[in-house]
């Protein structure tokens, strides 16, 4: 299978701020590829360069074999983009929006009509198709936005944080739709700061931080990279979280992390359920009352923390 997106050494500065610092990327055709990172990591800048909205300061990128800087119009013909905002017209109806974008993709009118009806049906918008978007909920707008980016059957679809700001139900709905898309042969590049989302959707994940790729692989490979399991303890009183961390340090095979606000202490461990018994004894000996203790597989949150030294969703 060939690579449909390639990027080599992408650099982009905004004044003194380095948004991309030599980013490399190769996306095989027909996959869902996850670009994972916190706010400001360079995800949106990457998408904007690949969708020809922004020129890189240096480095190069191709989509479907076309250079994004030299052949922007060839790239635009094969891509669809859904950004962080619902980039659809507020005053047109759902159907009118799809017609407008279909016309601007230079598709035959009869095809646009048929395809619009199909997409509206698929996104559960048929009943609202002839209403102005002012009457749509946030989730409906996002679905229409996604439909608009699919009108021309793009070979590559870029989804920049598609579920940001959606309620959990709408998010689940959108995930279902994205999974269906890949079944149609579309390649999806998805950016997200929700680790759960990347875990759910993406076959392969690239973790970026400060404009560089810091890790890549399948979700399982990334988790294995962290090694072992996670022991998570919720202490009864926030003040005792640090005491608990000290007590757990001899059992852990890495740094113990403390979240005082959530009264949560997390330790990387190996050795299966026996560790659980050891941990409870150690905490009891230290006189730390606990509300909960669990042993779990590492999540991508843990992956991010061990790779970067900071949490994925921390505020900058």
């Amino acid at each position, binding site marked *: 299978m060939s690579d449909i997106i390639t990027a080599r050494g992408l650099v982009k500065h905004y004044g003194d701020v380095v948004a991309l610092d030599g980013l490399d990327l190769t996306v095989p055709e027909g996959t869902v590829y996850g670009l994972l990172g916190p706010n400001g990591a360079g995800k949106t800048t990457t998408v904007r360069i690949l969708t020809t909205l922004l020129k890189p300061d240096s480095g190069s990128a191709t989509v479907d074999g076309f250079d994004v800087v030299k052949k922007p119009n060839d790239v635009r013909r094969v891509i669809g983009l859904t950004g962080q905002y619902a980039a659809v017209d507020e005053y047109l109806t759902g159907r009118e929006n799809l017609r407008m974008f279909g016309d601007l993709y230079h598709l035959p009118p009869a095809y646009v009509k048929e395809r619009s009806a199909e997409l509206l049906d698929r996104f559960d918008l048929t009943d609202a198709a002839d209403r102005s978007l002012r009457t749509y909920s946030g989730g409906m707008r996002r679905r229409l936005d996604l439909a608009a980016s699919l009108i021309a059957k793009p070979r590559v679809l870029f989804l920049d944080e598609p579920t940001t700001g959606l309620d959990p139900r709408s998010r689940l709905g959108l995930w279902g739709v994205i999974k269906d898309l890949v*079944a149609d042969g579309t390649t999806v590049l998805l950016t997200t700061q929700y680790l759960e989302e990347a875990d759910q959707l993406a076959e392969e994940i690239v973790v970026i931080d400060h404009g560089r790729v810091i890790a890549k692989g399948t979700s399982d490979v990334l988790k294995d990279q962290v090694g072992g399991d996670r022991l998570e303890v919720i202490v009864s009183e926030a003040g005792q979280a640090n005491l608990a961390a000290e007590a757990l340090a001899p059992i852990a095979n890495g740094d113990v992390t403390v979240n005082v606000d959530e009264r949560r202490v997390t330790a990387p461990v190996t050795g299966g359920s026996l560790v659980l018994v050891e941990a409870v004894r150690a905490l009891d000996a230290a006189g730390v009352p606990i509300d909960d203790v669990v042993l779990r597989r590492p999540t991508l949150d843990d992956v991010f923390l061990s790779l970067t030294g900071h949490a994925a969703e921390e505020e900058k």
Partner: protein
Amino acid sequence: MTTYTPAPARRRPLLGWGLHDGFVVARRNLIQTIRVPELLFFSIVQPVIFVLLFAFVFGGAIPIPGADPSTAPDADVYRQYLMPGIFGQTVAFASAASTVGLAEDMHRGIIDRFRSLPMASGAVLFGRTFADAARQILVLAVLSITGLLIGWRISDGVLNAIYAYALLLLFAYTVAWIGSWIGLYMPNPETANTAGLVWLFPLTFLSNAFVPITAMPDWLQPIAQWNPISSLVLATRDLFGNPTGIIGDAWPQQNPILYTLISCAVLVGIFAPLAVRRYRQATAR
């Protein structure tokens, strides 16, 4: 994985994709006009209020030099004089809609989507300016009726009146490009609301739209005489057969139609490329 099947392509239209794309965007902007009748309503009400205020509040206080008070009272002459001024001011203010419209499009991120489509890069701006000028047809119609009701008359034939309206629409189209260019620099629609208007007040008031240029201080007169709004208003007064006041010696005053056409060509020639260049770099915030 199923194999990917692309969407069918459409034959290139006779006049090229650029024009096709422009009209698709213009159609969208005109549908917006119908869907937000409040906006259209207020864009019509504002000049109507101007007509009534100027006609009835200032009407008798502004004598038009060159008119003979013995044949008609000052206030009646002023109403004839005023209407082309209001027309000129109204089409100039139409540019504010382009400023706000584009600022909103950028703010909502729809410009990002347009820019990611394989469409002509001037099409969004062409569609915007075309629709904003086309909307003025309706505004001018309502204003003309208001004028007729308060005693304004078209006194120099239908053909000349058509030329006058055409000149006004051409000017509306021209300032829409300036308004678009400003709109693409706006950080948000709220700022655009103000920035789209500020430059229009001096532009329209430093002209013959409401008062004769001869009534202004000497140092202001050349500015007003070379102001394209003055030549537009003078040309329409001429074409409608309305009183013109005393016409200055400056070339634009002597050749108002030609000067207006040249101004429009020069302004579009400057601001259309500037706006298109800015559009190519614009991204949502």
